[in-house]
C-alpha cells in the first residue's frame, strides 16, 4: 500500500472565476495550474527581470496589493488577474550629448513636477524601494540620491501603474543612474588602460593562439593556466 501525500487545495479567483489550486504555488504557477498561459508577462521566474508585476486583493481586506507573480505565494481567497503590462513613454536622449545640470532630469521628464508626494508608488514597489523619494530627488536635481535609491529597480512598472500624476518612475530612475555613472562616479582608470591595450593589439597574438588551438591543447592549457591567488 502506498501513502499518498494529500496536497491541501486553496481557492483563488482569477479574473473573477473561482479555481482550486494546490497550496504552495506562486501566483504565476497557480494561474498556470488553472490553465492560463503566459506568453508575455513572465521572464526569468526568479524575481530579477520585472516582467511579472501583478495586482491582487485578498478577501476581506481593503488594501489593493502589488507583487511579482513569480515570487509571491498564492494564498487562499486571493483575487488574481492576468498580469498587466504598463505602457510607458521613454524620453529620447543621447547620453553623450547631455550635460549634468540640476534640471536635466526634469527637463526630459517634466511630469515629475506633478508629484504630490502621495507615496502610492512606494507602497506599490515589490522591491521595497523608496520610490517617491527617488522621484523627489530627481526633481531637485540630486542625481546621486536618485541613482542610489533606484538602484534595485526591476522596471516592473507597478509604481507607474498606480501613480496619480502619471509619472513613469523607472525610466526616471534609469536616467538618473545613467547620469550618475557618466558624470558623477569616479572614472575607473584601469579600464581605460586595458581598453587602450586591447585597441593597440597587445592581446591579439594570444587570442589568435587560443582560437586556433586544437581541443586537447586547449584542455591542457586550461588545466595548466595561472590561477590568481
Amino acid at each position, binding site marked *: 500500500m502506498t501513502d499518498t501525500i494529500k496536497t491541501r487545495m486553496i481557492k483563488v479567483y482569477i479574473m473573477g472565476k473561482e479555481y482550486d489550486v494546490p497550496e504552495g504555488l506562486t501566483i504565476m504557477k497557480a494561474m498556470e495550474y488553472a490553465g492560463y498561459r503566459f506568453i508575455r508577462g513572465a521572464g526569468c521566474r526568479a524575481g530579477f527581470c520585472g516582467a511579472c508585476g501583478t495586482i491582487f486583493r485578498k478577501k476581506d481586506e481593503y488594501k489593493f496589493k502589488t507583487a511579482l507573480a513569480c515570487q509571491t505565494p498564492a494564498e487562499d481567497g486571493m483575487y488574481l488577474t492576468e498580469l498587466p503590462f504598463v505602457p510607458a513613454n521613454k524620453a529620447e536622449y543621447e547620453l553623450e550629448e547631455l550635460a549634468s545640470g540640476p534640471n536635466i532630469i526634469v527637463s526630459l521628464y517634466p511630469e515629475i513636477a506633478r508629484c*504630490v508626494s502621495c507615496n502610492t508608488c512606494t507602497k506599490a514597489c515589490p522591491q521595497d524601494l523608496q520610490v517617491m523619494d527617488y522621484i523627489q530627488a530627481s526633481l531637485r536635481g540630486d542625481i546621486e540620491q536618485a541613482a542610489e535609491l533606484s538602484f534595485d529597480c526591476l522596471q516592473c512598472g507597478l509604481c507607474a501603474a498606480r501613480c496619480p500624476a502619471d509619472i513613469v518612475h523607472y525610466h526616471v530612475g534609469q536616467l538618473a543612474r545613467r547620469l550618475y555613472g557618466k558624470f558623477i562616479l569616479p572614472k575607473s582608470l584601469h579600464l581605460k588602460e586595458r581598453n587602450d591595450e586591447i585597441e593597440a593589439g597587445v592581446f591579439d597574438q594570444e587570442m589568435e593562439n587560443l582560437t586556433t588551438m586544437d581541443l586537447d591543447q586547449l584542455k591542457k592549457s586550461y588545466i595548466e593556466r595561472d590561477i590568481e591567488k
Partner: protein
Amino acid sequence: MKIPYYPGCTLKTTAKPFEDTTKAVSEAVGIELIEMPRWNCCGTVYSLASDDLMHQLAPIRNLIRVQDMGYDRVTTLCSMCYNTLEQANQLVKSDPEKLEKMNSFMDQEEDYTGGVTVVHYLTVLKEMGFDSLPVKNPLKGLTVVPYYGCLLLRPEEISIDNPERPTVMAELLTSLGATVVDYPYKLECCGSYHTVNHKEVVCEKTYHILSSARKRGAEAVVLSCPLCEFNLDFRQKDLEQELAPMPILYFSQLLAISLGLFDALEFDQHYVDPKPLLKEKGLLR
C-alpha cells in the same frame, strides 16, 4: 541654537547661492541648521481648493519628517516654501477632520500631531537679535530697498511681520550698516508663476517695482524668494521700457558680506551682476 532646516528644491538648484550664504552665516552666528535628512517638494504653491487634500500631502509629509526628527520647529529660506508649509500646517491644525483623513491616507507614516511650527529664517535671526550679529564689514554707503512680495506676509495668519507695514528686512539691513529707503511697492506681487505663460505681466510688475525703487535712490533690491528673484532679476532682460540694470540680492548674500564671509559668495546665477556695485562700494574682497 539648533533648528531643523527644510531646503526646498530651488535652494538646491537655481538658488544655491541663497543656501550657501545662509549656511555660512548660520555657522558664524551660532545657529546650527540641521538639514532634514529626508524631505520632498513643499507642494510648490498652497492649494486653495478646500476639498483638495491630495495637494496638502506634500507639505504635511514634510512636517511629519520634522516630527520624526524630534523637533517642534523647522526653518526655511524660500518664501514660497515657507508659505506653503505653514498654510497647510494651519489648515490641518484648525481642521482635525482633515488631519485625520490625511493621516489615515498616509498610513505608512507616524500620524502628524500638529505640533510643528514653520519659522522663516528671518524670524530666527530676529529672535536672536539683529544687534547681536558680528558685523565686520558694514554695508556703508549702500542704499537698498527690501522687497517682501506676497508670500512672507499673506495671508495674515502666517505673516512673519505686520502684513501691511513690515519692517523686519529693513531692520536687518539697517543693522548691517546699509541705508534703507522706503518705496510703495515692497508688498506688490511680482507676478509669480505668470512668468511661465504671461511674461508680459511679470515684466510690467518688475518695471513698476524697480523703477519706483530706483526713484527713491535704491541701488539694489533685497529679497528672500527665488521666484521673486528670477522675476525681478531675469525679467529685466525682457523689459520694454528703459531701466538701468538693478542688482537683486538675497538678504543672506548681504549678511555674508557684512560678516566678512567672502568665501561663501557666488554671483554666477544672477542676470544683473551685483559685483560692480558691491566693488564700487568697497564691499567685496
